[in-house]
């Protein structure tokens, strides 16, 4: 029995909506779901599992129609869905009056319900969120029924406010496979008993690393997962990079090294840079310019001007600079105190009267 497992698609989300590439991201979220469906067709899987948060918010009727159209293009694939905390089923949900394509089963109930597929001897059990949070550990002590055949558990959660669960327990709960959702970063257990596929597309600058779906196969005789694999699908990656600077680094040099890093890792990706190290006190890195030229979600300049405080202090033991350093420079400076130290020294040095 071959299956694909996805979760946390967040259809309808507009990541980076204040960035020039924002619209592209919105579309990428949709396109990648289309790619998952295409993969389901070409890989001829039996089952497509969607472990919650297919939608970013309560779905509109037209969203359901779009998704249903996609699903209707793979009539040979059985699709089982549950709602997560983001697309939880509210009493006003259009899901209640929506008619899905015949290969689609949405486990709408708030309690565990199952759907059985005789053609590949599989039962999928799961439930949908109807509330924003589930703090009850509903999986502890929950076991697969003793009936023969393949049993799959489809659930959404994993943190304290959303179905707290002990991943170790999942390996021994009798289900052939636990298809999880909610955590946006992919994670596959070593014993192939459970996995988080993560979001097919990264949805935020913090969601770094590869994103995609999980494919797997369960032996109909042993009912054990025989293969489980993460397949990267996302159109882009968010890549965090640290650039180290020295007092010799100039703006142009920094720009070049950032450009090189971007070229090396693919300019379609979206980058976050952290500038670290000591910079020449006379240089301020022109971050805005870099941001407008490339797909850079964020540049955090943590570089510090390299003042030789001990020399400055030695030169100015009894005037403002010396007093100022003595007043602020401590071993356990807060970030603001540190900045204040730099600002003050910079101001004093830059406004010196020329006479000396």
């Amino acid at each position, binding site marked *: 029995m071959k299956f694909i497992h996805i979760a946390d698609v967040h259809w309808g989300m507009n990541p980076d909506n204040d960035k020039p590439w924002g619209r592209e991201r919105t579309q990428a979220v949709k396109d990648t779901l289309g790619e998952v469906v295409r993969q389901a067709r070409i890989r001829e899987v039996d089952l497509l599992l969607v472990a919650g948060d297919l939608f970013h918010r309560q779905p509109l009727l037209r969203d359901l129609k779009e998704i249903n159209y996609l699903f209707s293009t793979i009539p040979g694939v059985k699709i089982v869905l549950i709602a997560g905390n983001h697309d939880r089923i509210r009493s006003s949900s259009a899901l209640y009056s929506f008619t899905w394509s015949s290969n689609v089963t949405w486990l709408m109930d708030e309690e565990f319900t199952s759907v059985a597929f005789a053609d590949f001897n599989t039962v999928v059990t799961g439930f949908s969120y109807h509330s924003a949070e589930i703090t009850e550990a509903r999986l502890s002590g929950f076991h697969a029924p003793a009936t023969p055949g393949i049993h799959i558990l489809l659930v959404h959660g994993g943190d304290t406010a959303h179905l707290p669960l002990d991943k170790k327990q999942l390996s021994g709960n009798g289900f052939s496979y636990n298809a999880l959702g909610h955590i946006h970063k992919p994670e596959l257990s070593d014993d192939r008993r459970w996995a988080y596929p993560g979001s097919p597309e990264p949805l935020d600058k913090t969601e770094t690393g590869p994103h995609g779906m999980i494919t797997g196969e369960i032996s109909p005789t042993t009912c054990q997962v025989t293969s489980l694999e993460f397949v990267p699908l996302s159109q882009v990656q968010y890549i965090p990079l640290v650039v180290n600077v020295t007092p010799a680094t100039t703006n142009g040099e920094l720009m070049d090294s950032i450009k090189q890093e971007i070229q090396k890792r693919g300019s379609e990706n979206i980058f976050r840079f952290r500038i670290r190290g000591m910079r020449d006190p006379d240089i301020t890195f022109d971050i805005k310019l870099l941001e407008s030229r490339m797909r850079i979600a964020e540049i955090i300049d943590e570089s510090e001007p390299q003042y030789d405080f001990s020399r400055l202090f030695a030169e100015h033991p009894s005037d403002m600079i010396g007093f100022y350093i003595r007043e602020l420079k401590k071993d356990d400076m807060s970030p603001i105190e540190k900045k204040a130290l730099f*600002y003050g020294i910079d*101001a004093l040095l830059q406004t010196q009267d020329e006479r000396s």
Partner: protein
Amino acid sequence: MKLLDLYINGFGKFHDLSITFHDGSNIIYGKNEAGKSTLHTFIRCMLFGLERGRGRASRNDIYSRYEPWGNKAVYGGRLRLKQGGCVYRLERNFAKDHRSFVIVDETHGRKIEPTKAFMDQLLGGLTEVMYSNTISIGQLKSATDSGMVSELKNYIANMNASGSMSLNITRATAFLKNKYREFDRQTVPEAAREFTAILSEIRSLEKEISAPEYENQLPAYQIMRLQVRTLLAEKQEDRETLLQKIAGGRQALAGGQFTDEASILSYQNETERTYREYQVAAAAGNRKSRHVWMVISLLLAVALTGFCGYVLAAGDGNPITAGLGLSLLQSLSCSVGGALLTFLLGFFLLLKGSQLKKEAAMSSKILQEIFSRHLGDSSISEAAMKAFHARMDEFVHLSRVLIRSEAALTEQEAEITTLLERENNCDNAISTQQKTQWELEKKLEHLTQLKDRAESIRRILEENNRLREEMEAIQLALDTMTGLSSSIRSSFGLYLNKAASDLITGITGGIYNSMSVDENLNLFMNTSTRLVPLEQVSSGTMDQIYLALRLAAARLVQPEDKQMPLIFDDSFVLYDDERLRTAMKWLADTYDNQIIIFTCHQREARMMTANHIPYHLISI
């Protein structure tokens, strides 16, 4: 401390140059461009070193400015000085690849590690900055009075507020405030308010959406409608069947030309009556006596008529009448009368018989028609009549059934109307639901927009926070600077002003008793009678005040036992002869330390000679 001599290997324009200093006053005389500044800088660099590339701007790059004109590998020289009874020789080479610094204690004949600690001790903790601030004394550079006023005021302000003549707190704070404003301009102060507004809009919208009126009841209504429709279809089919049945019944009734039960009964009665009549007529017509009597009557009438003729022919004498004793007339009239009577009776009976026959025929015809219609057989009989009655009873039954069916139909129609109404209600409810769902979708879309907007604003707020952190840091810098500045003013500043004030009488030769600095760092000169603002004193006096301040600062920053030589660099250019004389005399009297005066004039030497002040003249 005393400078003994120096030797320049190479420094700027000089190489292989020896100069020896003496105790007391040394006047180094040289015309403009003779190299006084070079010599001055050499002494400073021998004491404090010369770093490459300090101060990025080339104008400040002392290193390249004083690179030897000749051999660049030999850049430096040596300076001998006496401190605390020991003679030290400082040897330095500043050249890029031959950098070296050697200190030799000549008194004890040993090399000394040139550590910072040793240099600090040697120089009494004096730094290069302090050296420039205090003991190396130039003149006010401005050429105009107003320029001098602001320069002097600036000096006083800097010294008072920052403890250094070059650190300008006013400008530094202005610089910081500018930065602060720049960050402030980048913040979006309305973002927080907008964020709150959007959040509350989101909350109220979410509340609105979760109201029961937006509950999706479409499936419930759809199921209900389906049930109603099924029921309705059933009812309508029943009704159709019933209608057909009724129509059939009606047709059957109409076939019998009946309308209702009454019409059947009256028809039945009528037929019954006709039958009775028929029976009577048929019975009367068939009776034999009637025919006998009619024949007898007619025969009697013929007999009587014959008798009458006989009588008439036989006359009176006929035996019959005669026998009876009747006259002819009597017998004639009797027989005529009898004949007539019997004839009439016979005729009546004949007529009556034919009438009865006719009536019977009529009734029979009616009955035949009735029977043939309802029974298919026209023969009239008691059995037929019985069959007819049975048939009519059937009609009555049919008519009763019809009435019941029609009642049922009315009932059913009422039910159908109710069901139709219910279906209609469902339709309405569904369309209302669809409308509310549509409204809901609009609201959900609006909610999405709001949430996206909130997300953007949240990022703006984050940026605001980042900017605020910078602003907070700047504010802390400003506060720290202001606090330090006021403590510098209330300690070093006060001492400086007081020390300068103490010196001013001597320097001005008693013209001014003292000077005072108010809280706005305005300077006033005091005579015994009035307070003169700085702006009103002459440029010469300003230089004197400057000198007083520099000397006061020099005293304040150096320990009593490690006083460095005072170095004057063209400090007295603006002094008139009288002032110069006063100043020179005062200096010689006040300072027992070494004094080195760089000048491009010969006035100082002349003045000292005239006043019998010993000095050592060095010409370059």
